[in-house]
């Protein structure tokens, strides 16, 4: 993510008056690895005329914002009671086993990052997870593995 791109995004959100949190989310979204780099933080602080400390403090408060690079696909496992009671532990274990990583880690091939998330408002199909922007519900240890595989397949046809 170059300076020009950051400038462009902020300009679209209202230039100097652009709301900080929306700027952070938009730039994270546009950055490969879905995170905020140190350069991005510096540039945001400069353009919005706020301190870097302020940008960091806001960015680190919110769990949807990451200050370190994430994988190509972000898997989020819901951890609240309705999902837990519906078998979350089993699907969580199946994911960890399949990918060989735990919460907060990224697979060595850089394809998946695993995170936990609060109730996705999808408890009518517990246990639920989210991969990028898509919800998957009523999961079993078997079906969650095929969900992961569908992203792997997409990857091998992709062009990275």
């Amino acid at each position: 993510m170059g300076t020009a791109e950051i400038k462009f995004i902020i300009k679209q959100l209202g230039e100097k008056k652009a709301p900080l949190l929306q700027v952070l989310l938009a730039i994270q979204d546009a950055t490969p690895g879905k995170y905020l780099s140190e350069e991005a933080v510096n540039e945001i602080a400069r353009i919005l005329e706020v301190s870097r400390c302020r940008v960091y403090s806001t960015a680190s408060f919110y769990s949807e914002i990451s200050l370190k690079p994430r994988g190509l696909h972000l898997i989020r496992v819901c951890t609240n009671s309705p999902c837990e009671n519906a078998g979350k532990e089993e699907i969580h274990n199946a994911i960890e086993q399949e990918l060989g990583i735990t919460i907060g880690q990224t697979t060595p091939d850089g394809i998946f990052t695993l995170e936990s998330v609060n109730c996705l408002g999808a408890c009518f199909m517990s246990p639920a997870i989210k991969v990028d922007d898509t919800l998957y519900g009523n999961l079993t240890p078997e079906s969650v593995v095929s969900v992961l595989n569908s992203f792997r397949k997409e990857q091998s046809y992709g062009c990275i």
Partner: protein
Amino acid sequence: MGVYNQNLVFNIIEEYVDLTAYRLRGGYVALKNALEQQPEHSIKELKASGLRGRGGAAFPTASKIEMVRKNEETDRYIICNADEGEPGTFKDRFIMTHVPFQVIEGITIAAYLAGAEHGYIYVRHEYPEVQEILRESIKKAEDAGLLGENILGSGFRLKLEIFSGAGSYLCGEETALLSSIEGRKGRPRVKPPYPTQSGLWNKPTLINNVETLANIPKIIEKGAEWYRSIGTVDSTGTKLISLSGDVVNRGLIEVPFGITFVDDTRSILPNVHNRVKFFLHESCGKCTPCREGLRQANVILNKLLSGAAVEGDMALLERYTRAIQEASFCGLGQAAGNSLKSSLEYFHEEYLAACKQESHGEEETA
């Protein structure tokens, strides 16, 4: 649900009610009626309806609108609180995806009544599909002259925008939400001043829950008397209930106030533990009772569930609970304390049994 019921407010039947279908259901009749009258007229109707906030505190909605309206400062804001994050709840998600125009019409009427010309729908970041539907719906309402400049030729205008949260449950608390929009950490502020007096950028601000605002068009369209005929004397209208426990009956139901539902509760301690971990994770750490009390409660619950607890732990947990409940700065800590307290009261025996148990089958989840 199934068929359209004249005595419900939402009637969530179809997957998505578009603008045309919404207008065939009587949508936007209320906005037209409201704009043809002085705001006071509709505020009176809302007051008579008995509508109370659905975001948790059950505050009378008409009074809140009136407080904003009566403020001398004419630069005012309206915010629709769509940060829905309470575990097990998806009612606002359903309202926004199924009847988005009912939410937007409600916001528009409330804005007219409060005299606000700028508004936000604060939607949690975990709901990108909801944000998308709302963005499209705002655009369609603008194109139809129902939002934006000179709404329905009345001269009233409302600029409505989506503001995305970023994964903080605490930002659903109204003052934390304001800090979040202002670009700071989503930490609660001291009340008073209340947002109605000094809200976003210190301007008078009306903040209401999605469900609250979406009730308004139906009340204005069908009248306070109709609305009062549903529910109880103190709690008028209907309530949306998210059912998530029992697999057979999962989903959203709309019932008149006064009908209670018991969702599936199994062994209580793992659920209490899960909730404590949730609150601990979402605590902003600003005050000690919430931050440290929840940390200690988590330790004790871990012991209870692993069979390592001794009898004194119960008394200790009760002490921490009282501190969390009574000394927390904001509603998050208070809610955490309340839920611990009621579990200790209603499931006393289960706690006692866990204290005495040598070892328990429950596994630790980090």
